[in-house]
């Protein structure tokens, strides 16, 4: 019990640390973009334009969130139905064997990895992240170095194989597209190609970068 709690605590601490690493990277991107923009406005002598642009960005965030809200609620609701009908678990069972081919040295991570990929596949980003963190814990050997399986998992997570790119479809609908779903099939095929490239390059580079 205590061990479990300790494990959970350290996981939380680690998440805090990542958030810092991530936000530091984003802080630089945010800082450089904002500073470069304001300096360029200043060079043009357009201080009012700089202020207007800064506030317009926040207004855009509010309207974008509202635009996304409807589609997001709908698909999250639907995916929960799939989950409770046992379809998500069924998929995980189906995927255990093929996953063994990709990550031979970590059979115990098969379940969280599959659930992570399945959740991503069904667009459940919220559910995918906890499974992904669990998978990384199972794959970790505590030496601060990425194993081939870890690298494979990260590479797979970086190619977005998703049944439906719901957020893109929501944006297309909001922008008055006559056929918002027309990009679904090419998007799916492109993401499959990206996943295949992830697997191949991960295997090939893993032999070179030790």
């Amino acid at each position, binding site marked *: 019990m205590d061990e479990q709690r300790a494990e959970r605590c350290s996981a939380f601490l*680690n998440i805090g*640390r990542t958030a810092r690493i*991530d936000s530091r*990277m984003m802080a630089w991107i*945010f800082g450089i*973009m*904002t500073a*470069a*923009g*304001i300096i360029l406005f200043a060079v043009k002598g357009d201080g009012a*334009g700089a202020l207007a*642009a*800064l506030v317009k*960005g*926040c207004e855009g*965030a*509010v309207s*974008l969130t509202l635009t996304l809200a409807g589609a*997001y*609620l709908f698909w*999250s*609701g*639907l995916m929960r*139905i*799939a*989950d409770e*009908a046992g*379809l998500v678990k069924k998929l995980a069972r189906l995927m255990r064997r093929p996953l063994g081919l990709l990550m031979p040295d970590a059979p115990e991570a098969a379940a969280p990895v599959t659930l992570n990929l399945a959740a991503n596949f069904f667009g459940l980003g*919220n559910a995918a992240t906890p499974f*992904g963190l669990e998978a990384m*814990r199972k794959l*970790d050997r505590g030496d601060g*170095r*990425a194993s081939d399986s870890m*690298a494979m*998992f*990260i590479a797979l997570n*970086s*190619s*977005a194989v998703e049944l439906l790119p719901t*957020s*893109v479809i929501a*944006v297309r609908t*909001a*922008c008055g*597209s*006559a*056929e918002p*779903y*027309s990009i679904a099939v*090419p*998007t799916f*095929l*492109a*993401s499959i*190609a990206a996943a295949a*490239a*992830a697997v191949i390059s*991960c295997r090939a*580079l893993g032999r070179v970068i030790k």
Partner: protein
Amino acid sequence: MNAGEAAIPLLIVLLIGYALIKKVNIYKAFAEGAKDALPQLVSVLPYLAAMLTALEVFRGSGALSALVRMLAPVGRLCGVREELIPLIVLRPFSGSASLALLRDTLTEYGADGYIGRAASVLVGSTETVFYTVALYFGSVGVTKTRQAIPAALISGAVGVAVGLLLIK
């Protein structure tokens, strides 16, 4: 009506039918799933606000077009249209900023033309590589990331290339 448009409502009907047979309380399940989406929406708004503020001032000042002009010759060599370069540059760094930029691209060039469809496929088929790497490797304290980042970037480049070929 294209195949995708017909298939999705059909899949939804099948899913609902299957769930009813499995005796799932689909009304409650749907509501609970939708409830899960709410905190996500609330927590994403402040980050969107920060990112869009930076993006708006970066673009409004002409800094973005300067960066794109610098990268345009590289894109031309690979056969990528200039209008798509900002999205390709931004995509690995931020999901929310790419969605915002996608919205702007669709508004400016139309959602159903070549640029609009290509931009949609680009955003839909790629991921925020740097965020994923930072989150997952950071969670177990891995600093030697070995082949993970190059493999993820190669994968993204292949996704972009295949997407553009399919749209043409």
